[in-house]
């Protein structure tokens, strides 16, 4: 069910992604490779910035809350528009991110079209 992603969660996840400190972001191998396959003209670090920017958009961001994850924490999925550096148009990207209970670590489960 679609829901408005809480501002507090967005803010916390965005701050972690922007800071990109060691031990605070865990990206699964699959989304890392999906991101790599999107365009060769960006870096891995670009994924953090793109996800953070997607969360920083003004207004309400709708997504889906996932309560069935193995890992503890608060998990949401949502879609956003992204234009890869070599692409002519924008893509709709789907992502699923978990904020761990301590509020210090995020897990990126998915990033794909």
């Amino acid at each position, binding site marked *: 069910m679609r829901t408005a992603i809480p501002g507090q969660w967005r803010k916390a996840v965005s701050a972690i992604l922007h800071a990109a400190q060691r031990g605070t972001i865990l990206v699964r*191998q699959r989304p890392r490779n999906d991101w790599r396959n999107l365009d*060769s*003209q960006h870096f891995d670090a*670009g994924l*953090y910035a*793109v996800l953070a920017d997607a969360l920083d958009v003004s207004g309400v961001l709708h997504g889906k809350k996932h309560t069935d994850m193995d*890992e*503890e924490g608060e998990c949401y999925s949502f879609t956003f528009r992204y234009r890869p550096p070599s692409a002519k148009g924008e893509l709709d990207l789907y992502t699923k991110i978990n904020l761990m209970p301590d509020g210090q670590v995020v897990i990126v489960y998915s990033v794909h079209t």
Partner: protein
Amino acid sequence: MNAFTDRLVPIEVEEPVDIPPTTPGGQVRTILVKVPAMKDPKDGEIYLGADATAILDKAKARHLGVLAPQELAELRKRLDLTQKEIAEVLQIGEKTWSCWENGREIVSRSLNLLLLSLYEGKINLPWLRAKLGENKQLVSAMWMVLRIRMIPTVASVTAHSIVAESASGNFSRMAGFTVAPTRGCVTPAPPRFPMRPNANYEEMLRCA
């Protein structure tokens, strides 16, 4: 701590990195880079952290001969500049710099040479700022000359070409001017190659 992060086991994995072509029509190459990772013994999932990202990005940057995003951030912080300030020094948009620094895009190859020189200490910020100052003085001096002395319509057309030329460093050669930044004045200098004298050129020399 989180139960999940506690159970992760450190491992090393080989990750593919795509190297885009540096010439038109070239092919993307894929290399393998060893990075630290974490494995979840429960389901076998492998996770990469920010340390792995930095290694992968540096490997990509090395193969392209450019600075990695993390190195651009390090350079800016070392120079004690904000993103806005460094963009101003480099005469690019703040958003462009931000895209390079956060890895959304690869730094432009032409500006990379300048940034690499700064990173390696071959040039320094005061030198770069002085150059920027010279350029600004030259352009504003020319605008002043043109506004005061020339017919407005001609001035408008000529000024546009001067701004374009000065940006590519051709203006002083074209007009035969040199700028003395410490005194903040424009002094005429003999042209470096034979130039066809014309009214505008004579007028500029007289004003200066």
